[in-house]
């Protein structure tokens, strides 16, 4: 009896293992990228990305993300700054415009999909300072005479008149002093 049960149990386990198909291992993938290593801050860069499996076949419909370290409020974190989905040829184009300058280390990441294992690759840019990141449009009326300091002209005129009046006031005083001078002399003598 025990023997029978052991045979049946073994058979059931064997059958179960046999019914559930063993999961095939995900196919390894690899990312290659073609990009310009030297770029200018603020200008968009296009990364031409290719995702292939271990046998070199293209992987289509895969989402590739680009991470770069981003500084915010004194903290640096890897943030997604661009992404693209591969076409039938396993190719995708990712565009992004680096905001900072200097050596920038980025990561292209494929998080995996059915049958394909995740993969990633790093890339680096030398981001240089742009000659002018932003050129503002000239504001206001574009005329040689439209200058804000001209607002001071009427005030200067008025204050000059005030000074003239103060001078007239001193003349009033001088006229009074001149008239009373002989009297003062007479009084002292």
């Amino acid at each position, binding site marked *: 009896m025990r023997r029978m049960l052991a045979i049946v149990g073994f058979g059931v386990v064997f059958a179960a293992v046999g019914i559930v198909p063993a999961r095939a291992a995900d196919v390894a993938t690899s990312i290659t990228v073609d990009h310009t290593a030297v770029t200018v801050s603020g200008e968009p860069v296009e990364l031409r990305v290719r995702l292939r499996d271990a046998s070199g076949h293209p992987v289509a419909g895969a989402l590739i993300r680009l991470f770069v370290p981003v500084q915010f409020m004194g903290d640096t974190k890897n943030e997604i700054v661009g992404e693209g989905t591969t076409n039938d040829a396993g190719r995708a184009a990712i565009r992004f415009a680096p905001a900072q300058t200097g050596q920038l280390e980025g990561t292209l990441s494929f998080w995996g999909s059915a049958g394909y294992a995740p993969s990633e690759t790093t890339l680096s840019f030398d981001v240089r300072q742009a000659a002018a990141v932003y050129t503002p449009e000239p504001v206001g009326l574009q005329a040689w005479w439209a200058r*804000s*300091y001209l*607002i*001071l002209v*009427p*005030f200067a005129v*008025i*204050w000059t*008149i*005030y000074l*003239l*009046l*103060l001078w*007239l*006031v001193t*003349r*009033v*005083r001088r*006229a*009074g*002093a001149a*008239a*009373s001078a002989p009297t003062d002399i007479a009084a002292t003598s």
Partner: protein
Amino acid sequence: MSAILDDRRARLLERAEAPIRPGAWGTRGKLLVAGLAVVVAWGIFAWIWQVRHGLAVTGLNNHVSWGFYLTNFVFFIGISHAGTLVSAILRLSHAEWRRPITRLAEMITVVALIVGASMVVADMGRPDRLQFVVLHAHLRSPILWDVLSISTYIAGSFLYLFLPLVPDLAILRDAGVGGKWRARLYSTLSLRWEGLPEQRRLLVRSIGIMAVVIVPVAVSVHTVVSWIFGMTLRSGWNSTIFGPYFVVGAIFSGIAGIIVVMAIFRRVYHLEEFITEIHFRYLGSLLMVLGILYAYFTLSEYATVGFKMEVGESTLLSALLVGQYAPYFWFFAIFGLIVPIVMLALPRTRTVKWIVTASVLVNMGMWLKRFVIVIPSMALPLMPYEWGSYRPTWVEWSITAAAFAAFALVFVIFARIFPVISVWEVEEGWEIEEATVRRPLPSALPSPALTASTVEEFS
């Protein structure tokens, strides 16, 4: 000079010097000054409290950052207009009736400007930041234009008040009114005035120049005040007529201010002989004309906005006419504008009592008008959010009360030191009047013999 003129001159001097003499205030006067001083002191305490704890103790917030303080600022700058502007225009147009009231008008300007400018300091929260206006002056900012024009106006108004004071100060100096410090003050400020022809010529010339200069300066002040609003892209302020609208409003409220002050001083200092009903009637007529002009501007402003009904403007207009700000707006429109105009237009109500009542209503209405210009436009959201709210706290009420008390207090103290009537100008007016009466008018009089007898009779 005739005996009648001598007698009038003596009475004028007596009336002008009476408030300046020692003990002139009496118990009631001292109580009034003490009461005003207490209100001002309380306001200063509230301001110190605000400086210590920040603007958070006020009802101002990130939506409504201009509240009572800016309303008071626009109101007092408006009041200041009347003084110098009315005095200068009447002087330039040789309106002889102006003579007894010019000093009061000029005093109003100086006092109102000082009080009005102090409201900006209260609104700033941090008074030490006032220096930044100069240190980091931005010539493209209407706020800097405002600082420039108001400081120019204050300087000009002081000068314009001082110049006609010189002969009167000499009268006080010679009369030996007051104690030692006053004698020294009058002696210094009277510029050794002896009434010499050369001195008179220089003084009249200076006053004439000043009268011409001060008119554009005064107009510029309220125009620039209006531009602080008009040059901001906000519903209710985005207007091209704000310059003249504000100037007319300023003269309107300013004349009402003169009438009220005139009535108080006339009664308290018994100046009925010099400030007569005719002054109230003439100023009342001016007030009515300016009221009609202001009504026209108000209609023009709101009718054009109401016809187009742009999104922000229509929301604001609804709030003003039928919404939360409607009581203030309609009080202004009815009691501050229509009722006073009717009162000033009807012959039956063209008396001192009714003209003063109309003026008080105008001042109340115009303060509310400034309130509905400043607050609703700030409270109106620029994005689809809730309306901003503004509820003034005890700090703002206290500082506002102190501003009005300070206006009265400075006025009372000023009137204690300087004559409120321009004695020499009134005398000059009488002399001109007498000379005109004495001059024979051949075309109007029947015969030379009769002319001679008439002249003799009046001599």
